[in-house]
């Protein structure tokens, strides 16, 4: 928890941001999006390290999953293999999902714009599938997971430079509370 203070400072900002996760669109996923915001961020002048429920440093919160662990992993150009960094993130995601067994997850695969549209749907599926298979290999029940590909239809970064493309080549684990996938 060495990032505690930093996390607390930015929790007020991120707590709201978590409600409008850029990757929340389409069907499903509605259950988890709002769970992080339960007020109270403003009156924290005297905070001394207590955990604010639902904030990014509450290990049970979606905000913790989305921000502290990180809800996404990135891929190299035209690749779907998981880097060591991506695996480290997914190890924590798997741990969180096993601890918080009320949550389901949809893994959304994406590609950058440097590819043809239909190929990119298949490529996004490969990335999402690789992510899902990794989570399953770490113990997450397969029936809590499914994946979908958006190809290049939903970039998070709109610039056309390598740095933006890198952020768009992603698989995002979108968690939601609920039963039945």
């Amino acid at each position, binding site marked *: 928890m060495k990032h505690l203070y930093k996390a607390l400072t930015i929790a007020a900002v991120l707590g709201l941001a978590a409600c409008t996760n850029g990757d929340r669109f*389409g069907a499903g996923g509605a259950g988890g999006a709002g769970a992080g915001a339960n007020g109270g961020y403003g009156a924290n002048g005297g905070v001394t390290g207590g955990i604010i429920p639902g904030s990014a440093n509450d290990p049970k919160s979606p905000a913790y999953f989305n921000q502290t662990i990180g809800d996404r992993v990135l891929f190299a150009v035209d690749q779907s293999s998981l880097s060591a960094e991506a695996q480290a993130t997914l190890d924590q995601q798997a741990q969180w999902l096993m601890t918080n067994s009320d949550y389901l997850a949809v893994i959304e695969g994406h590609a950058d714009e*440097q*590819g*043809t549209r239909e190929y990119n749907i298949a490529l996004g599926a*490969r990335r999402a599938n690789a992510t899902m298979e990794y989570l399953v290999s770490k113990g997450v029940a397969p029936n809590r997971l499914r994946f979908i590909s958006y190809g290049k239809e*939903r970039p998070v970064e709109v610039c056309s430079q390598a740095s933006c493309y890198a952020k768009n080549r992603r698989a995002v684990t979108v968690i939601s509370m609920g039963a039945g996938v």
Partner: protein
Amino acid sequence: MKKLLSRAAAVALAMLAPLVLAPATAQAQDGPLRIEITEGTIEPMAFAAPDFVAETPGAQQMAQQIGRVIAEDLTGTGLFREIPRESHISRVSSFESPVQFADWRAINALVLLTGAVSEEGGRVNVKFRVWDVFAGTELGDGMQFAATSDGWRRLAHKVADQVYSRLTGETGYFDSRVVFVSESGPKDQRAKRLAIMDYDGANVQYLTDSRSIVLAPRFSPNGDRVLYTSYETGEPQIHILNVGSVQSRILSAGGSAMSFAPRFSPSGNQVVYSVNQGSNTDIHTMDLGSGATRQLTQTPAIETAPSYSPDGSQIVFESDRSGSQQLYVMPSGGGEATRISFGQGRYGTPVWSPRGDMIAFTKQHQGRFHIGVMRTDGSNERLLTASPLDEGPTWAPNGRVIMFSRETLGASGTSSLYSVDVAGRTLKRVRTPDGASDPAWGPLQ
């Protein structure tokens, strides 16, 4: 003498009696007047198109509009050049009056187009004649077309198709429509909906709303239906839409698996498309009558963007089974596939020419995108365009022009439709009201 041929409901055509039966006297060439559109470089053929004569009161504006669309169709090909009205010596005040060939020769018009328009009771009639100015003869027979007044653009396109056909020996493509994805909003929140337009961007009609992402529509062979991919259910699934009723339904392609990239067979009875399972994407077919499906490819690679040969015997598609996207041809029932692309870079979105002789594709190489064509065995590759992001070629019904999407880069980047002819000439933007992508050209109507 007028022989009426009934075409689409609103449009009819008729032959006119030839006006000039006299043999050519000033033959300027040996064969008939003809522009060869396969030649490498072309000097556009000069034509004159004086305003069509208004034969009923109030038809003047309609006559002018029709004449303008015909001229735009012809000059838009890059094969023809219009001689400005200001240069005309002769004035055509009656459709039946003799042509003053000397006046048209004097301004170096090779072709003269004369016509007349009448409008009565909500219907427009247009008749026209094409003249070989230097031979002093009529090219083909005079014809006339009729339609309801709101179908006047189709009349103009039909006339232009006739002129194009007589001067090139090829079928025209102006009286055709394009289905595409209309786009609005920024790149990270782009709203998409299906739309249909005339080939030149006029008469846009929307077929879906923008609630769901829609991708890559394709016309049925006779233009009555459209296949496309929609995220309406939350996942990409193939849909079929009836153009007349604008009703659509999902083509269930195996439970919740993602399905996409649907295209019709030349018969219109089969659909070929991709299904994703895990990391694998394969090509399947579905019989639209029975719903029976069949898996055509079996590799663990990404296989998508299929396209039938016009005779229905083969399918060209892209696969990354070699490690990168390349083009392959297989029998339409499945079986061994032959790789046809061997150049540097990645090849995708192959589309078989309606003439059967070529395959158009998207190529990515060294950070650039190209639209290109190759013979069906992969030989004679030619790149027609280059830009940071060109993709998704579609053929005009006569196989002479290709339309595609071009996206500009950066935060404010937008997608537009462009066309280019098979020789790589006459690259131009197609006007659409909003951003546009994924064009698919329909049949000649």
